[in-house]
């Protein structure tokens, strides 16, 4: 088989690239390969599947006719196991070879598996793929209690789904608080309160040393010897870039695949994006692993344009999350808790239901966390993403009535005012160009 574009990975990054390619090049042969045997689905929504709130069809990321509509050949349930960079080829596990002109590695991440005894027992699961969720679902009838290892975003989402299924969950988090990479202390504490209110036990500062059971899970032992009885263990300590295909090639990797502002690797014609790649993070000013859906999409889109010959720079991303498990309303972005606060200004506001925190460095917003009232958080994040100098409005960012009108007028005029040369129509009639309004 020969194709102009080969995309490995059928998720946020791969789909974004395919959509961008089709905006530019309607005809060039496009093949997507995925070792998951599913139509493209929304990975974050596997928790809604497990909780029973959504069927498989309800978590599809694009309509069932997507591949057909876009003239895409999608090979699902097929794994690429070797790349021939010089020849422009990819070998599938089934022996088939695909020749390509442009290649995108949108291979995502794989779960980090801790080294502990008993990991091979029945009842130990990951929570990354739809198949994981299906397997957990199939196992639940014998489960009353579960231990979730890892109190990050994935662990929290698994926990919520299990709680909704009536399972008693204990979360074991190695650091001193849940969601510690995304939130500052105050916000973590609020989140923990909400999680505990739902009946979840949270154990922080410990790890699981061993999973107990004869063949099948019956408990977990913590590093301090404390034992927790449970019938299931979900390992959710994070993901690591899936870069095995780059082995034996010249494609440069650091922790993830190294890419430039066009999402291109060091090898001509080969691109990478999403959880597999280290895309530019504007807060850190360098390439970095940020495993979030929006960045995978934007990175994939950028890659797709460039693959199809339309130059486009990655606008840059940073960690940016909305966390609304357990009835929470939290949004966070960037560097919420700088390791060294010197040189940073931190603005906070707190009252009964609202907590807001904005971290500023050299007159630019580098981090934010909002709880409760999040409807206007995008305006603040927009200033952060666009690297706007906020020296004149710093003190107003957390004002109760903060909104677009607080921004420098040229900023909102550019977004809202009638563009030069546009033909305007009002309720009555065509507006004369010159309307005196003073």
């Amino acid at each position, binding site marked *: 088989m020969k194709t102009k574009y080969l995309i490995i990975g059928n998720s946020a990054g791969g789909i974004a690239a395919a959509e961008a390619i089709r905006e530019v090049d309607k005809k060039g042969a496009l093949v997507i390969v995925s070792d998951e045997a599913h139509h493209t689905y929304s990975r974050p929504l596997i928790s809604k599947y497990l909780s029973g709130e959504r069927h498989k069809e309800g978590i599809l990321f694009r309509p069932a006719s997507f591949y057909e509509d876009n003239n895409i050949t999608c090979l699902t349930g097929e794994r690429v196991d070797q790349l021939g960079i010089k020849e422009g080829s990819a070998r599938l596990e089934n022996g088939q070879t695909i020749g390509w002109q442009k290649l995108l590695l949108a291979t995502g991440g794989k779960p980090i598996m801790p080294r502990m005894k008993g990991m091979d027992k029945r009842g130990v699961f990951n929570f990354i793929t739809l198949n994981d969720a299906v397997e957990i679902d199939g196992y639940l009838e014998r489960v009353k209690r579960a231990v979730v290892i890892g109190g990050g975003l994935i662990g929290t989402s698994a926990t919520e789904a299990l709680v909704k299924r009536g399972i008693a969950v204990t979360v074991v988090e190695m650091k001193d608080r849940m969601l510690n990479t995304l939130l500052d202390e105050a916000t973590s504490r609020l989140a923990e309160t909400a999680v505990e209110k739902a009946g979840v036990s949270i154990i922080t500062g410990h790890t699981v040393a061993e999973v107990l059971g004869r063949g099948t899970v019956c408990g977990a032992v913590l590093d301090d010897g404390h034992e927790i009885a449970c019938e299931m263990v979900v390992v959710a300590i994070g993901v690591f870039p899936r870069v095995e295909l780059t082995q034996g090639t010249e494609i440069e990797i650091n922790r993830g695949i190294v890419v430039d502002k066009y999402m291109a690797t060091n090898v001509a014609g080969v691109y990478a994006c999403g959880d597999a790649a280290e895309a530019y993070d504007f807060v850190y000013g360098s390439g970095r692993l940020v495993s979030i859906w929006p960045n995978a999409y934007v990175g994939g889109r950028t890659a797709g344009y460039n693959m199809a010959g339309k130059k486009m720079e990655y606008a840059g991303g940073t960690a940016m999350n909305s966390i*609304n498990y357990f009835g929470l309303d939290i949004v966070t972005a960037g560097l919420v808790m700088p390791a060294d606060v010197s040189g940073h200004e931190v603005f906070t506001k707190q009252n009964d239901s609202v907590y807001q925190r904005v971290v500023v460095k050299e007159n630019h917003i580098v981090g934010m966390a909002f709880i409760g009232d999040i409807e206007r958080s995008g305006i603040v994040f927009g200033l952060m993403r*666009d690297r706007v100098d906020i020296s004149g409005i710093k003190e107003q960012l957390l004002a109760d009535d903060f909104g677009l009108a607080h921004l420098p007028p040229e900023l909102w005029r550019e977004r*809202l005012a009638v563009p030069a040369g546009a033909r305007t129509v009002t309720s009555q009639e065509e507006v004369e160009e010159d309307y005196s*309004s003073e």
Partner: protein
Amino acid sequence: MGAAVKRIYVREEVCMGCGLCRVYCQTEHSRSKDIYKAFKREMPLPQSRLRVERKGDVCFAVQCRHCDEPWCVYSCLTGAMRKDPVTGIVTSDSEKCIGCWTCLIACPNGALVKDRNNKIVAKCDFCPGQEMPVCVANCPNEALVIAETDDES
């Protein structure tokens, strides 16, 4: 290519901040389409999808800009938020939206609203079925206008 793209813009210098745009928006997005019922009777209460921003003497209405680079669409986890390739109108599919609010933080204009009733996102939909979006059609001072630009993409 070269198609005319229609958008709502604001002439801030003549906006009085009266908020009638919000009233008409809320009515249009009600079941009864009746002003009184839309504000006082309907349960659940419909919501306006635009805001009037104010600071001192400055005021203007803000609704979804249906951006050329729609961050909300790029950030949507579920595939609910889409930009129509022909009209450029950005819509959210209420069947698909789960109310994760990733689009809220992605929108630089704070132009999306939480639908309090369904816990999903609500936004300007350009009033399908109406000749002109009702906020524009009923703006007493013509501060809201529709303008056509040529799509250069």
